[in-house]
């Protein structure tokens, strides 16, 4: 017990220094939303929470209220009913219908709308978008940008390890696969994740709104060092991004070891029709 107390104190003292700016309630919040559409997920979460609290309130009212009112001492003579009268059956059926209409239909409708109109509404190839190919492997994320020629899987591609840099206010589309086991590309700050699976190419798109440095994680168990499969997302404004990409593209022309077959893990960018 002493040991526990010591540890507890030690951690609280140290964590109090590190996280002194963050209050208890603050720490429960999801990470800061940096995407244009993350708020759709957050607001649906909040709506569901209120609906759930509404119904759970009545469940609690039932459990605690009836327990209080109808204990053996207070209410020695129980009511003899099997709950099979027409009135009782309609009440129960009504509750079922109420839950379905108030909760299920609401959130299903909203979710369907967002899912089809936003999250699956991939930007057109003709738009001005950033394209990135992602390869998961045990235990790292590889990112590939097309080189100056604009074609993927050529020797002038920009390839980075655990280092994704993207511009602000521009639609980004990812094509994702995995080399070995199933991974899941997880952007906590954009509220999105999608599995990276060997033999398949999955897609994701978002648009970022805040510059800065953020975490990328792997959400699907992928082996011992799953927890270390961490990459960094750097969000630049457009000029910074252009400068960085330009420099990387130029460097790629000189530094790529052109004969190394391992380097060509990319693929020809798949047009919309091919991925469906």
């Amino acid at each position, binding site marked *: 017990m002493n040991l526990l107390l010591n540890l507890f104190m030690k*951690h609280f003292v140290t964590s109090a220094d590190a996280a002194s700016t963050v209050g208890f309630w603050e720490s429960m919040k999801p990470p800061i939303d940096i995407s244009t559409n993350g708020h759709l997920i957050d607001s649906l979460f909040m709506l569901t929470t209120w609906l*759930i609290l509404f119904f759970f309130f009545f469940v609690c009212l039932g*459990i605690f209220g009836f327990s209080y009112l109808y204990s053996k001492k207070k*209410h020695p003579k129980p*009511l003899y009913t099997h709950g099979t009268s027409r009135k009782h059956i309609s009440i129960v059926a009504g509750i*079922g219908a109420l839950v379905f209409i108030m909760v299920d239909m609401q959130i299903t409708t909203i979710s369907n709308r967002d899912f089809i109109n936003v999250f699956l509404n991939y930007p057109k190839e003709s738009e001005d978008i950033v394209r990135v190919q992602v390869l998961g492997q045990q235990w790292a994320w590889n990112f590939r940008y097309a080189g100056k020629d604009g074609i993927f899987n050529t020797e002038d591609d920009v390839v980075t390890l655990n280092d994704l840099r993207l511009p602000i206010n521009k639609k980004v589309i990812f094509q994702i696969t995995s080399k070995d086991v199933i991974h899941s590309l997880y952007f906590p700050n954009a509220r999105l994740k999608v599995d990276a699976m*060997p*033999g398949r190419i999955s897609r994701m798109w978002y648009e970022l709104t805040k510059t800065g440095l953020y975490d990328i994680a792997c959400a699907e168990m992928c082996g*011992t060092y*799953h927890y270390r499969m961490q990459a960094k997302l750097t969000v630049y404004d457009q000029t910074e991004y252009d400068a960085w990409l330009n420099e990387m593209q130029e460097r790629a022309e000189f530094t790529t070891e052109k004969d190394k077959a391992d380097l060509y893990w990319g693929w020809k960018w798949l047009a919309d029709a091919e991925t469906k």
Partner: protein
Amino acid sequence: MAFFEQDIHDAPTTFLSKYVFSFDHKVIAKQFLWYGIAFLGIGGMMAILIRWTLAFPGEAFPILGPLLFPGNNGVVPPDTYAMLFTLHGTIMIFYAITPILIGAFGNYCIPLMIGARDMVFPTLNMLSFWLAVLSAILLLASLFTPLGGAAGGWTSYPTLSTLIGSAGVGQTLWCLALFVLGVSSTMGAVNYIATIITLRAPGMGYFDMPLTIWGLWLTAILNAIFLPVLGAGLLLLTFDRVFGTTFFLAGAAATSGSGDPVLFQHVFWIFGHPEVYILILPAWGIVSDLLSFFARKPAFGAKGTALAMTSITILSTLVYGHHMYSTQMSPLLTQSFMMLTMTISIPSAVFFANWLGTIWKGSIRFDTPMLFSLGVVFVFGLGGLTGLYLATVTTDLYLHDTYFVVGHFHYTMAASVLLGGFAGTYFWFPKMYGRMMNERLGKIHFWISMVGLNGIFMGMMVIGHAGMHRRIYNPFVYEFLKDLVPLNMFITISALTMGVGQLFFVYNFIHSMYKGPIATQNPWEVGTLEWTIPSPAPHYNFKDIPVVRCGPHEFGNPNLVGKDFQYQTEELVKA
């Protein structure tokens, strides 16, 4: 209704035939109960190790740590951590909850509550237990192989669970252990279904069965249909591992030919989603009965509850796709699965209404089994409602594979089922062992468990919503999770509290077996058939097969004189 009547056999005389290779469903039930409780202890210990690692990364686990991990200064190493959460899941689901709820209560309650002398296939029943033992040996043996036990998560998705992700015999043994366990459970399931159909006492229609039997029956049906699916998947996985087939290998991972890793996910979740209901249905049944028994009031809309359970059973087979939203199925499938999943809330709402209707205007006795039953209503309310976030595809994009999922399914599968199991144990203990369990210790056990459970799983949902993903050894390498240290410590301390609370149960259980006050034939004053015979039940159960004349929940009938309940063997008293 009965198709036939079993003979009364002589009581077994030798130790071996009485306690070890017994054909008696009551002894097999107790064997399953002990088996389950032992594994509950092992799985619980693993949970404590996992929680310790998450709250105090890099700190040695006190006392046990240096003994288990001497090479690592008593700190749980990352590969062992993966093995721990894999086996925690596997053990709790297949080796603790399944044996206790289905093996023990299924075996114990079915013949006694339907008025039969034994299961319809006693030998199959015995085989079912001993195959479960064989399976446990296989699983535990995997821990002592050179690379340790399985470490790919309890879902064991390929290609992680193929040779690409996990070399070594451990994962193969895991597959075989679960395959054997699947055979064992299927044997049990077939037996339960046949027993309930053919051996109900004369006069007992399906709606005269206690709801416990309804729950166990539906569970058995799901088990018989879906465990073979898991078996097939595991067999294919074993082929991939041992014989070099490529059912679940694809892309760069396959050297020749090409299968699909996602195929395994389909196979796994076709089984895996019904599995959730396989575990919870017996608990629902037990709770539906106990609420009525202790509220001294007929179960409100018992037929409705039974039908709601049946419709959930059917729906449970149609919704598995909500586990796979992040694999980017066709949007049409995604939407269909979302809609189907949502419909489950209708029957759920129906039996919540019926549960609350049962205690409404009752005369509630707050004995330990009743407290646990009310606890189930509370935690299952939370568990069921939080499922909505995960059935909704867009919120699931964020919450999938986070601790929110972990908190949610522990509320439904761990908290509700465990509390239901405890309710059943406290309730049927007098009939099993002929002695009463201690009420005071039982109540202490209940309150500590309730506080602990809610602390753990509510905490998990909070950190999950804050973005913490699952199955990570050290969350604090991530910038966005740095603030979650205090919350993780809170969860771990709740888990330790919960663990300590279970000691009250273990002491109570073992002490009451030998020293508890002698139980009367019917200590809870309940009218179902098992309470018409002495405690503990004699080996032949019923000297004369009873004839059923009324339903299982006849309480508080104003026309009754002298007592407030009726045995099922009595004619319904009318004015």
